[in-house]
Structure formats: C-alpha cells, structure tokens
C-alpha cells in the first residue's frame, strides 16, 4: 500500500467525493486559487471550477451561514475554517444554528455539511494558531465531531462525513498534516463515524486519546513495554458520538484508564470519558481514572519552553502510565 501523509489523505477524500457527487463543494478563504493554506484543496479550482472551489470573503460567520443555506437547498458544502483559532466568529452559525436545524424543524431539514478545521499546537503557533476547539462542539447535540490521527482514518472518516446528512466538525491536527504518514489503500473505503479503534492491544493499562497525542501514546506504550507494562491504546477517532462500548470494554479488561489530550483539562473530552467509565465500569477499576491534558491556560504560548511546558509528550505519557500501572 502506498504511504501518504494526513494532508494528502484529506485532499484525496474530498477529491474522490467531489468527483462522485456534484453537490459536494469546498468553500472558504484561499481554498480556490491558492488551493488552501495547507494545500488541502490544491488543484480543485482547475478541476471543479470556481463555483465548487469557492474563494469566500474573509468572514467566517458568512462562510458558515452560507454553507448552511446551500445545504438547505440540497448541496453538500465543505466549508473550511482556515485555522481553528478563527472559528469563533462562525460559532453562531455552527453551534447556534446548524446544530439545531434538524431538531428545530422537526426533522424536515438536515444539514449535510462538513466543517473542516485545522487545529492544535506544538507548532510554535502561539495563542492564535494553536487552539484546541473540540470541547465546545462536543458539548453540542446535533453536531458530530471527528478527530482522526492517521492518514488512513482521516481519509475513510472524511469520506463518511461528507456522505453524512448531519453537520460534522472535522478536526485535522496541523502537526500531523505532514509529520504523520501511513498506508492508505488505493481502492475506495469508508470508515464508520462513532467507532473508536484499538491501535495497540494490551492488558495492563488502557490509554484513551485522539489526534496528535495518539502518536505520543503509542510511542509511550513502546517505552513502558520494555519495563513490562502492557498498554492498550484506544484511538477515539470520533469524539461525538463517543464509542462508549470500545472504551468500556477496554477498561473492563485492563482495569486502569489514562486519558490523554492536548486540549485543556477542565471540561475536556477526557472529563466525559472519565464520567462514562465511572458510570459503566466502576467495579472493574483498579486505580484512579487519570487525565494527562493541556493545563488550564488559554492556549499553549509561543516561546519554546512555554509551549513545551504546555504540551503532553511521549515522556509525560510514559510517566503517567508508570504511575497508574503501579496501583
């Protein structure tokens, strides 16, 4: 199988879906002429024309609202938010409106829209090019939230998201774009939304993660394996709806749970996973549910030591695994 990067997988997923279905189109800042600031839509203007590789004015509320209106007419827009940090002007349309459309029309209307959002830090992006925004969307009924870690998952999930009739927030970790490469089959495939993936099987500790952090968890699992700690790594892949079954099954087997994410600790996805396991696997637990997350500061700062201090990494994950395994 050919090796591809995450950004190549993302681009291919859209390309295939746009070739398959004329109603699918991309829109956003710089998605046309430039092919996207991360080149996710490179060549789309040439192949699909201006209407389906639509360079919009620099105005996120209208990018989202216009996508929504086009979806009402039966199109399947893929609005791109240039960086997650710039999603805030559009949240009225996304959280306020899009998420409520199906419910608020008694099912008469739905919103087949995928909002692509490059997110995340560890790239010296400072406060306004590093943000993790997932928790806000995960809190919102009516939205689905996907955060893949690998090229294979990114492609299969993005294709499914484009075919889904609900508004999907599709989070692509910027640091994984070119750093993470993996096998992607030539033939067409789809991956189910709402299904986690056990990326490494193990018996002693479960670690639940997603996005860039998933890779640190896998590395840390190898580090502690040499010390005799057998770690199971669960990649959530979809943050909403959560795959409760896979998480709970894993914890029932290992009796120990570590949750790792880059997003802030308080009210993050980890809090939800912790509550889930406390509810459904309490009697199986043999150690405290532990979270290793971004600290509660607004975003990872710019200066290298400050950014490093914020980011969870392989060493920090390994340390947390050792502590938990010792129970």
């Amino acid at each position, binding site marked *: 199988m050919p090796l591809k990067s995450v950004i190549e997988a993302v681009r291919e997923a859209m390309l295939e879906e746009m070739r398959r279905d004329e109603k699918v*189109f991309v829109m956003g800042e710089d998605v046309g002429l430039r092919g996207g600031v991360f080149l996710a839509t490179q060549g789309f203007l040439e192949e699909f024309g201006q*209407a*389906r590789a639509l360079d*919009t*004015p620099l*105005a996120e*509320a*209208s990018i*989202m*609202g*216009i*996508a*929504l*209106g*086009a*979806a*009402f*007419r*039966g*199109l399947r827009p893929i609005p791109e938010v240039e960086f997650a940090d710039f999603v805030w*002007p559009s949240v*009225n*349309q996304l959280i*306020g*409106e899009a998420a*409520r*459309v*199906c*419910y*608020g*029309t*008694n*099912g*008469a*209307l*739905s*919103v*087949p829209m995928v909002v692509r959002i490059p997110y995340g830090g560890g790239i010296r992006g400072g406060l306004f090019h590093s943000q993790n925004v997932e928790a806000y969307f995960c809190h919102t*009924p*009516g939205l*689905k939230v996907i955060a893949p870690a690998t090229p294979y998952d990114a492609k299969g999930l993005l294709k499914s998201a484009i075919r889904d*009739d*609900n508004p999907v927030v599709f989070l692509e970790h910027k640091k994984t774009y070119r750093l993470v490469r993996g096998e992607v089959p030539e033939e067409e495939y789809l991956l189910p939304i709402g299904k986690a993936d056990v990326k490494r099987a193990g018996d002693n500790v479960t670690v639940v993660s997603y996005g860039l952090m998933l890779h640190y968890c896998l590395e840390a699992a190898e580090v502690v394996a040499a010390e005799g700690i057998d770690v199971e790594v669960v990649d959530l892949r979809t943050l909403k709806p959560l795959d409760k079954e896979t998480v709970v099954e894993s914890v029932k087997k290992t009796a120990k749970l570590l949750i790792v994410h880059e997003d802030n600790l308080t009210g993050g996805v980890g809090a939800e996973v912790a509550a889930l396991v406390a509810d459904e696997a309490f009697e199986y637990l043999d150690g405290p549910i532990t979270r290793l997350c971004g600290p509660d500061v607004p975003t990872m700062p710019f200066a290298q030591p400050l950014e490093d201090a914020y980011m969870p990494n392989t060493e920090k994950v390994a340390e947390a695994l050792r502590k938990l395994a010792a129970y």
Partner: protein
Amino acid sequence: MTQAKPRSPKTSRKGKATGKSTGENRAVGFPEGLTEQDLLNSYRQMVLVRKTDERVWMMNRQGKVPIAASCQGHEAAQLGSLLAAQQDGDCFLFPYYRDLAIKMMVGLSPTQVMLSFMGKVGEPYSGARQFPLQGADLEHRVIQISNVVGAGLTQAVGYALGCRMLGDDTVVLAYLGDGATSQGETHEAMNFAGVHRLPVVFVCENNRYAISVPQSLQMAITDVASRAEGYGFPGVVVDGMDLVQSYQATREGIKHARSQGPVFLEMKVERLMPHTTDDDDRRYRGDDEVEQARLRDPLVTFPAYLKEQGILTDQEAEEINAEAQRAVNEATDVAEAASPPDASDMLSHVYAP
C-alpha cells in the same frame, strides 16, 4: 363593481437613497400587475391576519399562548411583498419572527396557525419545539430556523447560492428588522450577495424600534437602504404602510434580483403593538406616538383606498370581517381541543437518520 379608476401614484421615494431605481418605469394607471381580485384578496388576507393577531394576543393574556410577536402595522409591507412573490411563482422566503402575515398567507390554515401558537400536535414548523411558526414550512418554501436576530440572512444568501449552483431560477426574499441591520452577519450576508450578484431581495421592515431602542441609537443614517450602495446594489425606500407600493417595489426587486443581483428594500412601517406579548412599550414611547401611527394603520387605509377605487363596498367589508372572525373562532376551538405533543417527542430528530 365598477372598473377601477386610474390611481394617482403617490410621490415615490424609490431610488432616493442611492440615486438609482430598480429600473422599471412606473406608468400612471391601475397598479401594474394587479387586478381588483388581487387587491380584494389581499384585503381578505389582511383582515384574517389581523383577527388572528388580535386573538393570539388575547389568548396570551388568558395564559393559553406563551408568546407572540404582533405584525400589526406591518401587514401592508408583508402582504404586498408576498403578493409579488406569489405572482412571480418562483420565490423562496426567509422571513423573521414578526412575519405572521407572510407565514400564514403562504398557505397555512388558521387552524394550523392557532395550533402553532398554542404548541399543539399539528404545529407545522417545528412540531411545537420552537416559538410559533418558526422552523421550516418547506411545502410553502419558507425557512426561519432561529430567533437570533440577523442569523437567517447568511442562510438566505447561501440558499440563493445553492439555487444558482443547481441552475434554479429562484429568487430568495430575506426579511429583517431595522435592529437586525446592525448585526455583523447582516453585513456579511449583503457583502457576499453583492460580490456574487445573487438573486436575493432583502426586505427590511423598518419600524424604527428594536424592542425599545430607537433607530437613532441603532444607526447614524435616516434610510438604512442607503447602505446597499456600499455593497454594490440598489437600496430603495418604500412606504411599507401602503400595500400597493410594497407590492410594486417587491415585484421590481424580484425582477432585478433575478437578472442583475441583490436589492435592498427598506419598508418604512409602524409597529402598532409592543415588541411582543412580554413587552410594555409605555416605558419607552408615548401613547400619542402610537395613536398617530394608528391613523396610518393599513387596516384603516387599505379598505378606504379600495372603497375609493370602487373595489370594495361597506357591506363587502363587513362580510369579509365577519367571515374572518368566524374562521379565527373555529380555528381557536379546534386548537384548544387539540392534544399537546407527547413528551417522548422531546428526544427525536436531534440527528438526521
């Protein structure tokens, strides 16, 4: 009934705001495109809407309708624009919460409207999940998702974009209040519509109030239509208390939108009631102001005009009123007897299947 006499057109303020007109010559004579039957029908609609509006207000006081936003004073603007849209035959509407006349007269029965206000089974827009007549009535090509002032405008523009992408000839009518013109999203919607010359008619029902905040604290200009020029399309000031003028402006607006791109119509209207059933407007405006406004009530001026034109007799007017009252009474009875939704409905339709 005698043939309608030529109507001397009132001094039109069309085009004043931008110095442009939407480009149609306005012949002196019976209003172009209108028949006596149209006008009579609009009067029937106006009466039925007013009786409905008064009834739901009363039922609010009886504790039977949780909330209502009255369209009293806006009927001429709403029904005039709706008539133009219906004649055109290929318009899609994004009204706002004050557009009772539009939402009702696209084709809902008085009973459906009363079911909606009371939140009963059969509510046509949202299954009674939302405020009355809010959600979508796709059968009649109407969408209003939200209560968030200004939020529907980018959606309306997106709908028009979608229509263009699919090769439709549809024109979108997007309604908003004067307060809504201050929202950033309104700017974004108009800007995008202008850039892509999308077939959108923005219809601003300017009643000079956003709840209590007067126009002078909302904007530094007299005619918000003048903003349209900054988006590269015409803005037109219309006497929204006059159904014929509202009709004509919308009719021309629709033609312009389809052939050349967006238009902004500023319909100057009066809000004859408090903002909603929850508001007490004596806190911020004098009785005399409302009394003055009532002299221009379309329910007074429109039938007077029709009588003057020989289109309507006193007796016909009485019959029309009695008939509307009967319809509203019947609808009220049916809605009062109807069942509320089952509590289990609460969990459905969070996601599309």
